[in-house]
């Protein structure tokens, strides 16, 4: 049986059990009904000042020690970004070769001085706020991605997917969210009568019961799914990218199979570089850049239906500490990658690094609310109209024009 037939057959089976969702999805001609937004979350607070460096800024070059900054010249020189902000010469970290390539091809838009305008320097708090789509704490447990899906009421069989293990809080409250890490083991091999009985056993209305029934549906749907990465995707074969490659490969496979994924999240860990950033950072950046590029190639013709947002919970301090690391900071870079992105230019407003321009006199200030960047993707590519439903209390939406009309 061909792959496509199998999926349709499966979906038909599911339709009897739940609602005939896939058929609705297939009939809708609007391309925004297929578009998928992938959030790559760099956990730990990426040092945006070394990833997208204001390298021509004299103060930056002064306060940062060698190895914690991007050089203007020499063998370790950063990759120059045209159309930068505020008359400053920005450079990508030299290990971000693939990102630079995307930028030059006009597919990658780079924001700077973005973030959560709350002031918290706590990972825990910052992530909990961002994942719930908030700026100030509110008694809302639901995640922002969950609200996007409620708003879209998508018809696909796997509308929301996380592939890094667990379920990020952004998805909380959307019960059709699916967590899949490894398709090759996503099955309940032995004792084939079990699923039928489990469905009866988990018949209640608790989160556990509902998730269990959803899992049984997904098992049926993905029974035949295996990652079939094209060799040309060329995932980097290094120990430090193996895990992230796996998450990307699973996601690319699911997108190629056409399950109607609208929102997805992939986590990248290890960015909390308080110590010896000199040593860790090149590996982290090189891994992210090459693995993300492989994912993008892996999408094949589906890449026209995918927009990738790269973000983190906060940036890092301008000055380094005495252990060759950087402590928790504030404003940061965000990136948007996609075929319809008006890339090759930087967006946002650069506040500068002079003492009076810094937040609290120590950290890069924030001039672009993270919700404006996400909001622009949601509105333009997913067709979400009411952004204040996604981000409660968000009325100051300022699109930057990152998508071509």
């Amino acid at each position, binding site marked *: 049986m061909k792959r496509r037939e199998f999926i349709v057959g499966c979906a038909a089976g599911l339709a009897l059990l739940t609602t005939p969702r896939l058929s609705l999805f297939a009939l809708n001609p609007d391309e925004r009904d297929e578009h998928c937004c992938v959030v790559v979350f760099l956990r730990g607070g990426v040092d945006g000042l070394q990833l997208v460096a204001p390298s021509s800024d004299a103060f930056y070059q002064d306060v940062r020690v060698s190895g914690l900054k991007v050089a203007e010249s020499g063998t370790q020189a950063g990759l120059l970004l045209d159309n930068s902000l505020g008359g400053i010469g920005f450079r990508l970290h030299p290990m971000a070769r693939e990102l630079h390539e995307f930028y030059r091809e006009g597919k990658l838009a780079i924001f700077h001085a973005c973030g959560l305008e709350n002031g918290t320097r706590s990972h825990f708090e910052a992530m909990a706020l961002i994942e719930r789509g908030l700026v100030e704490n509110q008694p809302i447990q639901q995640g922002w991605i969950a609200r996007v899906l409620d708003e879209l009421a998508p018809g696909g069989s796997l509308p929301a997917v996380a592939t890094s293990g667990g379920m990020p809080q952004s998805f909380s409250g959307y019960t059709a969210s699916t967590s899949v890490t490894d398709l090759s083991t996503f099955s309940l091999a032995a004792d084939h009568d079990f699923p039928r009985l489990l469905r009866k056993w988990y018949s209640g209305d608790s989160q556990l019961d509902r998730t269990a029934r959803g899992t049984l549906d997904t098992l049926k749907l993905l029974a035949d799914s295996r990652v079939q990465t094209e060799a040309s995707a060329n995932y980097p074969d290094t120990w430090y990218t193996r895990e992230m490659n796996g998450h990307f490969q699973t996601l690319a496979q699911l997108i190629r199979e056409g399950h109607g994924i609208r929102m997805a999240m992939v986590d990248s860990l290890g960015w909390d570089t*308080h110590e010896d950033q000199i040593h860790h950072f090149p590996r982290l950046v090189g891994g992210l850049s090459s693995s993300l590029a492989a994912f993008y190639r892996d999408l094949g013709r589906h890449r026209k239906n995918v927009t990738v947002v790269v973000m983190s919970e906060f940036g890092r301090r301008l000055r380094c500490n005495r252990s060759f690391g950087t402590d928790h900071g504030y404003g940061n870079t965000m990136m948007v990658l996609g075929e319809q992105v008006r890339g090759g230019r930087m967006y946002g407003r650069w506040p500068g690094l002079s003492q009076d321009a810094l937040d609290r006199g120590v950290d890069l200030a924030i001039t672009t609310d993270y919700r404006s960047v996400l909001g622009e993707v949601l509105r333009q590519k997913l067709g979400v109209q009411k952004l204040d439903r996604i981000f409660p209390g968000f009325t100051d939406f300022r699109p930057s024009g990152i998508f071509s009309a």
Partner: protein
Amino acid sequence: MTAQLYHLLNRITYGPRPEDRQHLAEIGWDNYVAEQLNPGEEPEALRRMIQEDVYGWRFDINGESTQMEMPLTYYDLSIGEIFRRLMPAPGNPAKYDLRRPFFETLIVSWLKALHSPWQLRELMVEFWHNHFTVSVDIEDGIAACYAAYDRETIRPNVLGNFRTLLEAVAQAPAMLHYLDNAVSRASPANENFARELFELHTMGAGSYYNHLYDEWTKVPGALEGRAEGYIDEDVYEAARAFTGWTVAINQPHRDLSVPDSGEFYYFDLWHDPYKKRVLGVELKSHQGPMEDGRQVLDLLAYHPRTAHFIVTKLCRWLVADDPPQSVVDQAVGTWIAHQRSPDQIKATLRTILLAPEFAVSLGQKLKRPNHLILAFVRMTGAQLTPHESVFWWTRKMGYHQFTCPFPTGNPDRAEFWINSDALLKRWQSFPELERIGAAEGFFDWDVLAETPAEIADFASLLEYWTARLIPTVLPARIRAELRKIFFEDLATRSIAELRRRDPEALSRRVKQMVRLVCMSPDFQKR
């Protein structure tokens, strides 16, 4: 066993065994709690497993996997001795061996969770390891310190005094490396430890008054030296207070020779000696060695917000994800009343475990992945030798034992552990244990020996095992279904006959049935 007895035991063990129920039924809950809070010696059999048995250890050398069997050789050694033996040097083993103390700690922790009669203590070891999370995945040097972290820092204090535990942690090489205080020096200091000390170890993120950023005088109580919350400046100042709390690794300095022991070391030349202000309290310039840090620990350990934060976590661990405020308040009272007593934590646990709110919290907690496996083994009477494959599987299920990617530790709320990937792996784990465990020789389960011989018919068989595994009576339709699936084709034969003639077929069926009961919603809870 009544659902109530099951519940009580289930909550303070890694799965009650038949003999635990019997003991509880004999002595009653109050006495049972008193016993658990005053643990005695470990049984001889467990001591032998730790001291004499050998365990498989697999590692890669130049990309080739090597397997060897070895006894636990590093668990009992001091850090100084471990580093002397393991540091890469001519004649010493290679770098991979630095992970052995960590690996041995994992083995010991599983052995104790499986076999120690002092189950509540083991649950508290897990609690404090998560509260004071240290991940060996940051660097191999941390793995080398892990046995000492478990044996010297965490275990002696799990039922003791919080202030003592806090200082032990602040001076533990594993923590000093993990949160970078080992490399923090004046100036600017490294803030990593100081921030997590406030946010995760003591007062909690809820006491972070970030909106007041640098206006310390506006923090309520600060002018009286009793600030009710902390701001970034407190973090900065506390970071300064802990400069010099490091690990002796032969730091180069003129005219001064720092030893190379890997042990905690106070390095005065790295300390920032000038005046600081933390939570509205002034720390004077040029105090004695470690005085600044100790004063910060005092302020934090005895802070009412800390009492509230830690006790809420304890109640979350033992009562419910959202514990009733009444039990939290009562336990906070005990915590504060005993804050200078060596039995502070023990007294607090007693309050929680004897509270009426605890007694009625059946089904309010979800087993974390490690707990699920441990309970399966303990409650079915299977034999598990701690093994890399089990640790790996548990990690794939999302539980990071000593390898947590975030300093917050493994979450203790059900919703984190409930998603399609995690749930599927929970279901898969029982057949996987049997499949991989049998192949690699670390799992053995004689289910017929665990089934009383007097059970004569399939209905009783089913009833016996469900009662042993879950607290609720099965709905009739599920019971009927189970009998149909597993025993319909055997129904014409008696169990006695099958035991004699075809024990393997019988055993296979009973195992399948037990595994399925363990996949039920009830077994997911603790």
